């Protein structure tokens, strides 16, 4: 599942560590979410969306796949 977390974070000029602190997770988890290696739980997905002041479907797109690296 593709997501726009990295894009939304950089638009706000935040580092991964700052976003992690704001969400109450580790920086490694932010990295994993941004790279698509980890799908957050529903509560965390909502926290992320609320933090960026968007809806969940604006952040996470279930229709698209993260390309294999």
């Amino acid at each position, binding site marked *: 599942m593709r997501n726009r977390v990295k894009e939304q974070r950089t638009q706000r000029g935040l580092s991964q560590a700052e976003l992690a602190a704001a969400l109450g*997770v*580790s920086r490694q*988890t932010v990295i994993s979410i941004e790279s698509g290696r*980890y799908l*957050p*739980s529903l*509560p965390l997905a909502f926290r992320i969306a609320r933090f960026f002041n968007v809806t969940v479907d604006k952040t996470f797109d279930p229709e698209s796949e993260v390309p294999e690296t």
Partner: protein
Amino acid sequence: MMRLSHGRLRVPAGMVILGTGLAAAVLVGQGWHNAIPVEVVTVIAAVGYFLLGGLVTDVGTIYGSSGDERQQMVRLRAQALTGVVTVLAAVIGYMVQIARRAPTWPFGVVVGVAAASFVVGLAIYRVHDTFLGSPGVPEETRK
């Protein structure tokens, strides 16, 4: 970078308690000259575990019994793998003991306890959907 969290002492303390119990058993069965090394190794392992738990990395948070939902999931999967490997080792040990015509009951106990734990786990967690502290459990439920 190191940090100190509340649950960080839990596993090392458990290691010391179990290791001391083992050392006591060795003391009774084999004498102090064998018991002292067991206790020393126990303390070294517990201190090492405690220090690893202070690292601000995925591994550190897992050893430190803390972490966010992803790290809890990693710990959960590692524990599940540990359980599966332990049962497989016990089954292999059981078969080897049969072939050697040696007592099989220690391995049988391990397999039996594992099977019973699995059934109990299914009964408990099916009712509660998932266990407390796992990802997906509402915050108010965890308290």
